[in-house]
Every structure is written in C-alpha cells, then in structure tokens.
C-alpha cells in the first residue's frame, strides 16, 4: 500500500488491527476445538498405552486436524508474541531481530512437528 509508510502515511481510518483481532479469535476457535477433540479421543481410545495413542495419530483425519491446528497455532503464536515485542521492546533493531527469530522458531518447530507426525 502506497499510504502505509513515509511522512504522509495513513494513520487513521477503519480496520486497523481488525485483521489481527479477528484472526486471533478464529485461530483460537480452531485450537480450542482441537484441544477438546484430542482430550476426548485420547480418553476414549480402546487400548490405552502406546498402541492406542499412536493409533489415534495414524488416522488420516487426526493427521489433517493436527496439522490444521498446527497452522492455526503458528499464526496465533505469531500475533501474540509479536504483540509482546511491540509492547516491551522499543529499539527497532532489536525488535526486528526478535520478530525474525520468532518466525524462524515457529516455522522450525512446525517443520519438526510435521516430521514427527508423519512417522505414524
């Protein structure tokens, strides 16, 4: 957007922060529903122990739901952690470094988690 930087940038108007606010709620609903489904499924497995637990994640619907929740988690954590840096870190350089570090941390962990879930 041409108006989003420089001396004449647009600093008033509608929708500032609406996207973050709304995405934080939508990703939260995905994560909350996943948590409840996971808890109930884990309690209801026919065979407690390793085979029941890994068998749960061997099913395609669970893999899909888990990875969807993971994507929702990454976006949710990004918005939340970025807000923490914006609130407490005033130095622009340090803030940028922390934000880039946050993205690397979240994406790195997600790739690892997908690798783990692909084993069963």
């Amino acid at each position: 957007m041409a108006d989003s930087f420089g001396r004449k940038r647009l600093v008033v108007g509608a929708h500032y922060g609406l996207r973050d606010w709304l995405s934080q709620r939508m990703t939260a609903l995905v994560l909350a529903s996943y948590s409840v489904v996971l808890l109930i499924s884990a309690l209801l497995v026919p065979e407690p122990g390793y085979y029941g637990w890994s068998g749960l994640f061997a099913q395609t619907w669970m893999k899909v739901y888990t990875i969807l929740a993971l994507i929702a988690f990454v976006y949710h954590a990004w918005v939340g952690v970025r807000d923490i840096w914006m609130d407490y870190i005033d130095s622009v350089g340090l803030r940028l470094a922390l934000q880039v570090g946050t993205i690397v941390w979240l994406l790195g962990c997600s790739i690892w988690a997908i690798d783990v879930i692909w084993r069963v």
Partner: protein
Amino acid sequence: MSEVSHKRRPEFRNIHISQILGYRLPIAGIMSILHRVSGAGMFLTLPILIYVFDLSITSELSYFRLIELTELTVVKLFFCGIAWAFIHHFMGGIRHLVNDLHMGLTKEASPLVAQGFLAASLTCSAVAWLTIFGVI
C-alpha cells in the same frame, strides 16, 4: 510559543518492571497478564513439547523412555507448569471471547467474570497436577 514549550506535558508510560509488585491490578488485569505469561511460556517451551510428542509417538521403546522420564520429579513439575499454562490460556481465551460478545463488560460484571474464569483455571489445573503426581 515559548510558554507552551516550557510546560512539561504529563507522560503516561507502561509500568516499569520494578513497579510490578507494588502495582495493584484489578482481577481482570491479573487474568490478562497471566494470559500473556502462559502464552509466552508455551511459546518458549515449544521444542520440549515437540520432543515429548516425538518420544510418545515414534516407537514403543521411545514411549517407555518417556514413561521413565515422567518418574522424575523435575519432569513432573515441568508438566505441572505446562498444564497450568495451557489451562489458564484456554480459560483466559474463553473469557476474551465472552467479552467479545459484549458480555461481562460493566464495572460490576467484569471482575465477576474474571473471578469465575480464574477459579475454573485453578480448579482444572489442580485436577491436572493431582493426575500428574498420580494422586488421582
């Protein structure tokens, strides 16, 4: 011009970390800052959580390695912390969604809603802690 510029305008900044203990937050504020603390905690311990998931799912051998690890008190305490962080973040999140629906926003209702969710968070956490230590 000079008269105006000599007058110091009051500044309202974020409280400093040294003021935290003396700062009296309303209970909704306590719920809110704990929501942030619990979220940050889960963000920072993410690799440990994935490692635990890895051990639990990769093989029967790694599963038993995890069971062995959970015998250690320090591991139990870690799980207690994560359980609290998750449960608190969950309850605090639902409080936000309730507020988003314009419920519990008045001066009278807000602390009541916050108290309710704090009580729910602590009750569920207590159940989780007792389960982790094998009491129930």
